[in-house]
């Protein structure tokens, strides 16, 4: 068998040389024979003649020999390919249409597949990623990766694995030279890098002494930051740098090849514990199996250790959660995966529509080539070669389209980058072998599938009828049209499915964008800065900074007011439980709420209306009576809507003095939608306890907001920067944003859903319309004679055009009905992505169907309009 394969390969490789070889060999044979004859005494001339005769017909032998060598397969392939290219050159319009359609379909598929590859298929860029796991809490409803300090305590001394904990990422201030920079810090425990399997470029990672409460401050720099701020100086390890306003010892520099999952510039010790943030589920715990350990062993160990943790902290309720492990980085992708699969399905539909289009084009072309086929068959051309020929043609087209699609795919990735980036793709999108193979496979399948059906139809030509019909080309042949019309009907129906899906997502986005904001964000500019900083460790320093900077900002010409707050509307706010004592309840109640600290001008800068009571004033200071303001949702849920009651807690009893209107926020506690008002307690910044400031500032950077008379401009942002610098030159502004920016980032996933599916739906619609156009154009050409006769007999031009357009519109209407049914079934997959609109939203269905039929009517009208210029007399003279 091996010998045989080798022989075939050799045969193919040498196929060019082969003719000459064979010639040489046979000539040698004849020569030898001649010489032998001469030796036997035959005269030379006689010998040559005799030798030739003995050998027989040279070229016939060679032809037989070629067949014996199995060359005709290759010969035919090459002949077919050359013929296909010639054929396509002769029909450039057809070829261009097919190649462009293919390029579009394969382009979007390649783009989406490269995202799927980067997110779901490609291995993590860490050594042995299959041995890397997240510790997850499995609830009956699903798994989460969030863990608390108690879980960490229970799991940190595992036998079968090494383990590390990860905290959040937040901007911090790094001093380099005499300037300060805003950089991204991630807090991680000891062993973080060894669990990931990432070596250090310099130094080491954190040790247990540094990763303990009260341990020495240490930092690991990322390779790019080391190069950018410290000129890649190896002696930086062992020196201290000024970070978060205090000295940190640089213990290491991470490897240049390390790709973190999010943008991180440096790492500081997490110091996981059961106190502070560790009291809640604010960590992620990951582990790597020790060598030789099986997944099941570690799974069992984590489960039993987890059970002990839950048992020790059991309340009266039964435990319905268990600790488990799941492949690293996969758990939090559940929602992402769903959206990606929907997107994939959408591009799949676009692909199917494209295929249908191409098949319809091929059918149309097959019809025009019927005489060619008929002639070939009549002359004795076999069915097999004919089908092979047609398939070769479609594969040639397919490969050309595939190549164009690959290029286009990357253009699509660039064009849609904004929305694709939103999918949390942290590994770069690239054309790796997986994507290339997938595209190639797709191309071949598509081109063969598209080419085969028409090829068979073309090959099943009734020779006699075809050749005869050619003679009298008067009647419109109707029989072969049903297949093409069915195909176009299918693509119209499919495009309606995408249109309805996109319509629903667009309505979701519009609904969310038009929610009553509860405040007025026009002409307000926000700037944030990190206060996770040793110089702002207590409430006195923080409030001095707030007072000085806002006073300076208010002096900027055109500024109407300035304030500072931990959170702005549209952001995700700090959550906590508080105890409420209200007049209507006999007992204190613990309730979950969002919290925010604000300076007194916050409400006036954002124009948040006061509903009852009073707002904060400058008189609410650290020495006056503790007060809070709540929002309407809080009052409705916990105070029966009345201004009354106190927040009672460990440090003070705070009187509720006012109720303000709700603003839109990203919910933290319940997942009722991307934006919704939550219960809120506002604290005056002057009365926010130091410990709360510290905890809040490890998770969030506060924002300065300034209302100006006109639209915010460069000058205003420079003024804000100077105002902060005049109070503290080493406090860098992280970024300037408008409230619209905040809203857009809160709705980024809804926006990308709407745009991407809208894009696919537009593509699908365009392809379907090409199909409708083709049907009508074809029938107009075929019925030109009929129309000419009718016009000659006195039909009005309008009537004729109406008849010409009719098949397109009828097809679209049928497609709309069919697609409506299909959409009704398939929109249920979008359920989790819709807000403020039902999957079966009648308005969307009707609007999209009407749009579809309207566009189809236009697509049908275009070819029909050529009838206006039709001269009845010339048509009748034609034959």
């Amino acid at each position, binding site marked *: 068998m091996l*010998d*045989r394969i080798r*022989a075939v390969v050799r045969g193919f490789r040498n196929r060019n040389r082969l003719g000459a070889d064979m010639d040489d*060999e046979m000539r040698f*044979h004849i020569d030898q024979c001649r010489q032998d004859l001469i030796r036997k005494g035959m005269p030379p001339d006689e010998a040559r003649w005799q030798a030739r005769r003995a050998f027989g*017909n040279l070229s016939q032998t060679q032809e037989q020999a070629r067949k*014996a060598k199995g060359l005709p397969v290759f010969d035919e392939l090459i002949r077919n390919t050359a013929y296909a290219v010639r054929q396509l050159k002769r029909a450039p319009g057809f070829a261009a249409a097919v190649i462009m359609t293919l390029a579009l379909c394969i382009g979007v598929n390649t783009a989406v597949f490269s995202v799927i590859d980067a997110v779901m298929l490609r291995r993590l860029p860490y050594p042995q990623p299959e041995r890397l796991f997240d510790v997850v809490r499995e609830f009956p409803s699903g798994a989460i990766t969030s863990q608390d300090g108690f879980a960490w305590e229970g799991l940190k001394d595992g036998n079968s694995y090494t383990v590390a904990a990860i905290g959040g990422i937040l901007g911090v201030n790094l001093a380099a030279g005499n300037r300060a920079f805003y950089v991204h810090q991630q807090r991680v425990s000891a062993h973080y890098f060894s669990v990931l399997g990432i070596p250090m470029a310099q130094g080491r990672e954190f040790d247990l002494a540094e990763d303990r409460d009260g341990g020495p401050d240490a930092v690991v720099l990322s390779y790019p930051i080391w190069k950018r701020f410290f000129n890649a100086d190896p002696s930086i390890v062992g020196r201290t740098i000024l970070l978060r306003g205090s000295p940190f010892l640089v213990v290491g520099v991470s490897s240049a090849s390390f790709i973190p999952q999010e943008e991180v510039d440096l790492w500081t010790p997490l110091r996981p514990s059961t106190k502070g943030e560790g009291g809640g589920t604010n960590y992620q715990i990951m582990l790597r199996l020790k060598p030789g350990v099986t997944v099941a062993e570690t799974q069992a160990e984590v489960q039993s250790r987890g059970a002990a943790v839950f048992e020790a902290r059991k309340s009266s309720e039964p435990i319905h959660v268990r600790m488990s492990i799941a492949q690293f980085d996969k758990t939090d992708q559940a929602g992402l995966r769903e959206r990606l699969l929907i997107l994939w399905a959408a591009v799949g539909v676009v692909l199917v529509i494209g295929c249908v289009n191409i098949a319809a084009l091929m059918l149309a072309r097959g019809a025009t080539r019927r005489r060619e086929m008929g002639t070939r068959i009549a002359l004795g051309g076999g069915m097999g070669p004919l089908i092979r020929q047609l398939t070769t043609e479609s594969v040639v087209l397919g490969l050309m389209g595939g190549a164009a699609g690959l290029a286009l795919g990357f253009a699509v990735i660039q064009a849609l980058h904004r929305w694709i980036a939103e999918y949390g793709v942290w590994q770069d999108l690239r054309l790796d072998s997986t994507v290339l193979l997938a595209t190639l496979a797709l191309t071949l399948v598509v081109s063969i599938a598209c080419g085969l059906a028409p090829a068979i139809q073309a090959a099943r030509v009734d020779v006699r009828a075809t050749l005869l019909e050619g003679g009298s080309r008067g009647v419109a042949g109707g029989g072969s049209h049903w297949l093409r019309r069915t195909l176009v009907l299918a693509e119209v129906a499919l495009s309606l499915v995408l249109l309805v899906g996109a319509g629903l997502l667009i309505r979701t986005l519009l609904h969310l964008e038009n929610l009553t904001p509860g405040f007025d964000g026009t002409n307000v500019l926000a700037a944030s800065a990190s206060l996770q900083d040793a110089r702002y460790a207590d409430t006195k320093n923080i409030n001095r900074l707030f007072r000085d900077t806002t006073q300076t900002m208010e002096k900027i010409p055109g500024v109407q007011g300035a304030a500072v707050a931990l959170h702005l509307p549209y952001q995700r706010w700090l959550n906590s439980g508080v105890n409420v004592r209200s007049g209507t309840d006999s007992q204190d109640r613990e309730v979950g709420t969002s919290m925010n600290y604000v300076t007194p001008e916050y409400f006036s800068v954002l124009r948040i209306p006061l509903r009852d009571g009073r707002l904060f004033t400058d008189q609410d200071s650290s020495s006056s009576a503790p007060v809070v303001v709540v929002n309407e949702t809080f009052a409705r849920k916990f105070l029966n809507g009345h201004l009354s009651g106190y927040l009672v807690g460990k440090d003070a009893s705070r009187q509720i003095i006012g109720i303000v209107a709700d603003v839109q926020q990203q919910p933290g506690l319940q997942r009722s939608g991307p934006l919704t008002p939550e219960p809120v307690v506002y604290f005056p910044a002057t009365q926010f306890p130091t410990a709360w400031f510290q905890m809040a500032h490890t998770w969030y950077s506060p924002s300065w907001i300034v209302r100006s008379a006109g639209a915010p401009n460069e000058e205003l942002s420079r003024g804000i920067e100077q105002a902060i610098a005049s109070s503290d030159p080493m406090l860098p502004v992280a970024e300037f944003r408008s409230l619209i920016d905040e809203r857009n980032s809160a709705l980024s996933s809804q926006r990308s859903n709407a745009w991407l599916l809208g894009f696919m739906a537009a593509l699908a619609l365009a392809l379907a319309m090409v199909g409708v156009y083709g049907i009508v154009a074809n029938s107009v050409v075929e019925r030109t004679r009929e129309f000419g006769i009718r016009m000659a007999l006195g039909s009005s031009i309008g009537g004729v055009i109406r008849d010409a357009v009719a098949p397109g519109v009828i097809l679209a209407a049928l497609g709309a009905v069919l697609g409506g049914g299909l959409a009704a079934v398939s929109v249920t997959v979008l359920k989790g992505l819709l807000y403020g609109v039902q999957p079966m939203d009648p308005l969307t269905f009707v609007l999209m169907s009407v749009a579809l039929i309207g566009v189809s009517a236009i697509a049908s009208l275009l070819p029909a309009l050529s009838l206006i210029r039709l001269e009845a007399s010339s048509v009748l003279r034609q034959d």
Partner: protein
Amino acid sequence: MLVLKAVSLGPLHGYGILLRIQQISASLLQIEQGSLYPALYRLEQAGLIESEWGTSDNNRRAKFYTLTRSGRSRLRKATAEWNLFSTAMGNVLAALPEEI
């Protein structure tokens, strides 16, 4: 099979194979020259023989054929089958009326 046998005795070029077959069959079997090459190529395509360019006795460029491993085993099998067949045929044809 004849070709395989001829080639099994050592590398040969096409004309040589022809001569060898004539020689070992004592000129009883004549192969038509023209049909030799298609047969050779079929065998090569099937991977039973291999070819290589070399120099002939009189210093001319010629293509030499050798038996491959699968060619050798095919020859062995074919020889065994032929022997069985020819023995059987021989016995049948040699049978005399009185032996039945």
